Structures are given as structure tokens and as C-alpha cells.
């Protein structure tokens, strides 16, 4: 630990019970990205789920709009230590998208326009835990926050909630994604503070 700078407090660390360990509260919505913001015209947008035996399920933007949506209000936690409470989204539960998918795969690799990837166990995408979100706080999801649509998986660190999401590949073997291959934790539970590999 370094020398203490007199009078420096830094961001207020939370004592709020809704804040996972090591997190601080923000009221703005920080934008973090690992590359240029992809611009995806809605008439060319698609979302796919590829099963472990090579079958592809595909949704156009119009298909997505016809599906029943939900309006989850959730707390989100970024691995860079900010948390934002009561964020209001609209999107389609992945349970709906997975209804017609036959698969016994245990692992999912989520991929995005622009090349980003992240991995999760399939069970973390089901049972009301994940959404394909296309509206935030009453407006269409802005490109810098992942629009037209992003994944929303709020029970794990927010890097798992892939922006500009394009599809999911279902896999028998786990395959680590973009940050998971560069030191970040494979699962990323904020309540167990699983930030880095080995945490």
C-alpha cells in the first residue's frame, strides 16, 4: 500500500446492502468499450442461436419485436467497481428465445457485432435471469450502451452483458471470451468478488 494522501477520500465506497463488496455507486451510466461502436441498421440486424449440433435459429429485428417483452428493473455491477441501482430495461427474456431451441449443451459463447465475445454457463441465461434488451430508461437503447440490442445478465459482472449482441453459440466445452482470456474471471459473480482469474 502506498503513502496516504492527506484528505483524499476517493469515490464513496458503499455501505448499502445492495452494493456487492468493493463497489461504489454511480448515478450516471459510464460507457466502457474495447473497440469502435458498431452501427447496425435494423433491417440488417439479426440474432442467432447456434446449437452444438450445428442447427441455427435466427431472428430478424421484426421477429424480435413480435415476441413478448418484459420490463426488468435491476441493479448492475461493473467489474471496474461502479454499480448502478434500479436500471429499467425492456427486452425479450432468453427463455422465450430458447423455447424452440433443442440443446443439451452446458456452455454458451455470446458474440457481438464488432467481434466481442463472452462466455457463460447456459443455465445462467435461463429461468428469468437474462434478457435481450433493446430499450433503456424509456428510450431505444443508444449505440454507446449496446444498441440496437444488448444482452442483460445482471447477476454477473456487467462485461457479461455483451453490447451489440449478435448471437449465442451453444457448446459442449466451455470457451472463454474476450476478457475471460485476458485475466478476468471465467464466471464473474459480483457477490463473491470474482473479478480476476483465481479470485
Amino acid at each position, binding site marked *: *500500500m*502506498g*503513502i*496516504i*494522501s*492527506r*484528505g*483524499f*477520500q*476517493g*469515490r464513496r*465506497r458503499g455501505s448499502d446492502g445492495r452494493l456487492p463488496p468493493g463497489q461504489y455507486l454511480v448515478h*450516471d451510466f*459510464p460507457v466502457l468499450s474495447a473497440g469502435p461502436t458498431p452501427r447496425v441498421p435494423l433491417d440488417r440486424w439479426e440474432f442467432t442461436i447456434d446449437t452444438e449440433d450445428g442447427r441455427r435459429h435466427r431472428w430478424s429485428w421484426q421477429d424480435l419485436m413480435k415476441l413478448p417483452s418484459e420490463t426488468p428493473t435491476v441493479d448492475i455491477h461493473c467489474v471496474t467497481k461502479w454499480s448502478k441501482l434500479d436500471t429499467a430495461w425492456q427486452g425479450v427474456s432468453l427463455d422465450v428465445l430458447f423455447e424452440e431451441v433443442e440443446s443439451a449443451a452446458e456452455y454458451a459463447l455470446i458474440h457481438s457485432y464488432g467481434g466481442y465475445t463472452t462466455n457463460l454457463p447456459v443455465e445462467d441465461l435461463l429461468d428469468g435471469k437474462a434478457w435481450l434488451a433493446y430499450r433503456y430508461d424509456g428510450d431505444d437503447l443508444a449505440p454507446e450502451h449496446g444498441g440496437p440490442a444488448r444482452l442483460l445478465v445482471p447477476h454477473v459482472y456487467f462485461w457479461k452483458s455483451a453490447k451489440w449482441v449478435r448471437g449465442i453459440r451453444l457448446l459442449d466445452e466451455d470457451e472463454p471470451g474476450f476478457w475471460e482470456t485476458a485475466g478476468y474471471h471465467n464466471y464473474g459473480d459480483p457477490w463473491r468478488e470474482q473479478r480476476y482469474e483465481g479470485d
Partner: protein
Amino acid sequence: MRRLPWRVARLAESRWENDSARTLVLEVPGWPGHLAGQHVDVRLTAEDGYSTQRSYSIAAPADGERVELTVERVPDGEVSPYLADVLEIGDEVEIRGPVGGWFVWRPDGAAPVLLVAGGSGIVPLMAMVRQRRRAGSRTPFRLLYSTRDPGRRYYAEELRRPDPGLDVTYVYTRAVPEGWSRPPGRLMLDDLAAGGWPAEFAPDSYVCGPTGFVERAADLLLSLGHDPGRVRTERFGPTGG
């Protein structure tokens, strides 16, 4: 073997450059010296052990154990409001560096130099201006300095004083002083053509500022025929302050 160490830096002097930018003169025992254009990491640690760090360009050439930074207060920032408003003479922070070996100017350079600054991008370029003066270099310098309005300038007094071989041109993007002939507006080709060097002089150009400014200035220089290999750029974005 020792990794680049954190060193204790004590605030020895400070001055305001305008109402939101403060220059900090730090005394850093063991400082190895630095080149004009290099930067440092500054680390702050709170009593409970929480710590965070930011990068700042060095504003003046090497002077023993003195390291001079100019810090712009970012509203709602975490580090810059502390450095601007809380840090007092005698207080300590930690710094690490110097780092960076590409965006640097050495006084032995013979080519004429064009400096293009956008906002607080002036800081590492000012280190070059001061380095040139201190070294008694005869390398001709031209500085093109774009700010929102005259009140946002840094180092205004110093840049007003005669410094033979240094030409300074201001570009104001929002508001101009009375009687100023150029209307407010972003950097244009004419500004670089008039305030810079002709491409055939083969100048070394250093461009520093926010990303959009740097992209634009570098594109304009290339369109004027400057050699891309002689145009060095440094961008800074929203750092979180």
C-alpha cells in the same frame, strides 16, 4: 530487479493557469529526469487503503528533482478535483515515471517544429517550448493553440513574452477577444497553412488534445502534404478525471 517504482512527491509550489487548471510543482526525491513530452502516473491513496491513479503530462523540462504538472479540474472527477482544490503545499502523492518515448522532443532535433494543441493538450507541448528555451536551441518553433475562449488558455503570460524563434497563434472555437479578425470556429486548413510550416520544410509536428481534435488536425496536416511519419499525435479522452 526493480520495476518502475512509485516515488513520494511533495507539493512544493502551485499556481493557477485559469479558473480550472492548476500547475503543481512537485519535489520528487530520486527523480531520474525526463524528456519533454513524457508523462507520469499519479497515485492517490485514502486512509482506508483505497487507491486510484491517473496519467498526467509533464509541463516543464527536467529540473533536478522537480516535476511540474498542470491539472484541469474535471467536474465530478475523482482525482483532478483533489489535485486542484484539496492538495496543499507540503502534502504528498505518489508518482511513477517518466513514461513514453515516442511523443517526445529532444533539443538536438534540427527540423523545424510545429506544435498543435487542443485545450489541455498544450501541457506536453509547453514542456517542449520550455525545453527549447532552456537549452538555448535555435530550432524554429510554431505553436498553434486552440481553446474554447481566451479565458481557457494556460500559460498565457509566459506565451505572451517574446521568445525568439517561437511563433504563437491562437484559435478560438467559441468566443474571441474584441477586435479579433478570425471568427470563432474549429481548426481549419487555413489556420494550419498560416500558423504552421509549409510541408516542404519537412517539420516535425506534435499534435495533442482530445481525440476528435487530434484526428482533425492530423488529417488537415496530411492533406497539406505533411509526411505522416513526421506527424506525432497524442490523444486524451474522458479520463474519469
